């Protein structure tokens, strides 16, 4: 997914001279072909995220569409005011490529684990947040970024992410993709968690619990119409995300359902606890550790459907 994203920046830059790539201090050789082929559209500006965001704003003021690439925690935490003021206040079409969204950088520890990046970005007026699920979907999404008139935060997976998307699903920013039609339960998820959620839905189907799955690749603006329609006919909604339970997709779903549905709907939010990670290993290892792999999700949903009140009490309060 990461390579697909950067290769698409190159492809878009070939096609459209407005496109520029701005990296802070990526790995050696990153987008080397673009650097050689389109040097006037290729910038490496150093470990200076605050400046890089301001510079991208200045270029966007002049008509460019900058794609800024660095690590997800740095592009959200380090330069928040520049993102808020320089990009969102001016509604400039800068694309923020957050490498290692969620638990990708598990072995590098809590400074690099982007557990609250979506919450940070969601708070900003005018920010669009997109979490593609795999490389082919990233390609389809990137085609849509060229003329989207707002800043976009792009949450990248690790690379080599399992492919669950299909070409016929297409891609429209702000439009959810239904992966399985709703049964008793609707599972709303985003990004690479689609793969784990589809696995969970399969396990649950074998246990007699029919679950629909919807991929809200665009966490903001959330596809409220699709969510309200899908949620109206189910017993419960479950959200699954590789993100703290504060402020991410689960919060967006709760807010939307509270606004849209007249009758309360049980909602189970599965995600990361409100704590920094202190384990290392791998992304998959941490996903399993937090019960967000297919068996963990299936077990949580099975228990919730059987005894929703009991499970609610077992989740830590926020």
């Amino acid at each position, binding site marked *: 997914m990461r390579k697909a994203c950067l290769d698409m920046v190159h492809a878009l830059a070939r096609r459209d001279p407005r496109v520029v790539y701005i990296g802070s201090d990526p790995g050696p050789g990153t987008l080397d072909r673009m650097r050689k082929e389109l040097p006037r559209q290729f*910038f490496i500006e150093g470990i*200076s995220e605050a*400046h890089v965001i*301001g510079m991208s704003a*200045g270029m966007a003021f002049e008509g460019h569409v900058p794609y800024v690439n660095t690590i997800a925690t740095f592009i959200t935490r380090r330069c928040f005011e520049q993102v808020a003021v*320089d990009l969102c206040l001016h509604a400039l079409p800068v694309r923020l490529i957050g490498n290692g969204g969620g638990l990708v950088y598990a072995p590098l520890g809590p400074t690099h684990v982007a557990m609250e990046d979506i919450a940070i970005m969601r708070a900003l007026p005018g920010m669009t947040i997109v979490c593609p699920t795999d490389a082919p979907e990233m390609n389809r999404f990137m085609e849509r970024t060229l003329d989207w008139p707002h800043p976009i935060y792009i949450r990248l997976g690790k690379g080599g992410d399992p492919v669950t998307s299909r070409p016929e699903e297409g891609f429209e920013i702000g439009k959810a993709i239904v992966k399985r039609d709703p049964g008793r339960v609707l599972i709303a998820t985003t990004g690479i968690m689609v793969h784990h959620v589809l696995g969970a839905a399969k396990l649950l189907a074998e246990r007699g619990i029919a679950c629909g799955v919807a991929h809200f690749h665009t966490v903001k603006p959330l596809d409220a119409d699709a969510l309200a329609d899908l949620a109206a006919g189910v017993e419960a909604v479950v959200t699954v995300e590789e993100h703290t339970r504060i402020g991410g997709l689960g919060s967006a779903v709760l807010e939307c359902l509270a606004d849209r549905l007249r009758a309360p709907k049980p909602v189970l939010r599965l995600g990361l606890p409100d704590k920094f990670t202190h384990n290392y290993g791998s992304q998959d290892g941490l996903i399993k550790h937090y019960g967000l792999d297919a068996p963990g999700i299936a077990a949580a949903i099975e228990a919730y459907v059987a005894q929703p009140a009991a499970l609610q009490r077992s989740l830590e309060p926020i």
Partner: protein
Amino acid sequence: MTSAALDINTATPPLDARSKALRRMVVESVVAAGRGHLGPALSLVEILRVLYDDILRVRPREPRWPERDRCILSKGHGCLALYAVLADKGFFPPDVLATFCAHDSILGGHPEHGMIPGVEASTGALGHGLSIGVGMAIANRLRRSAARVFVVLGDGELDEGAVWEAAMGASKHRLDNLTAIVDYNKFQSYGPTSVVLELEPLLDKWRSFGFAADEVDGHDVDALRDKLRAVPFAAGRPSALVCHTVKGKGVPDAENNADWHHKNKLSAAELASIRAVLGGA
């Protein structure tokens, strides 16, 4: 030449009628709103006056003319001086100044792009303008435009690390179409910059970051004009002009007085005293 070589308190020529008229516009905006950053605006008047009178290629009736020079007031809290100059130059009618900070006004306590003709970027959070200016300067060079970029910074603002990130970037890209102008009034909100966070040796700092740097009496209109007409100071390098100014310049009670950084109600006595110095009704 070191900064101390310029003695602005004794050598500055007296304010001429135009400088006094612009200051009256600043003061009357504060009177109308009952608030405003007075001191930081009064130190800026000659810098902005010279920029808009003699340096910037701009079209007040066509504020988005693509070939215009870009001027960013990075110290957005100095906006009262910018508003006075923009109104005086015809970017918007002068009577709009009386709406400063009113609910429906285009003129807020910090300047907003998209609201005010001639304002290139919304500023107010400090340390943002130079990076935006770097991006604009790179973009203008890419499209082979002769448009130049001027960024006016406060001295307190130089505490922000992002300014120096931007300075390194400007130098790396050899942006001789970019000029940083520092309103060095030696005061920030709490008190003297030398107490809060020492900036000296300031010229050496800019030079060590790759700028061709010079300094000037920031209230001497002729000297300012000469210096700004000379940019870029060196081919292939961004320019920095450190302007030695007096916070609250032109209003004796406000001069070098941190209490006048942000002024709420002006008393009748204060107003009478100001009008006695600056003239006007």
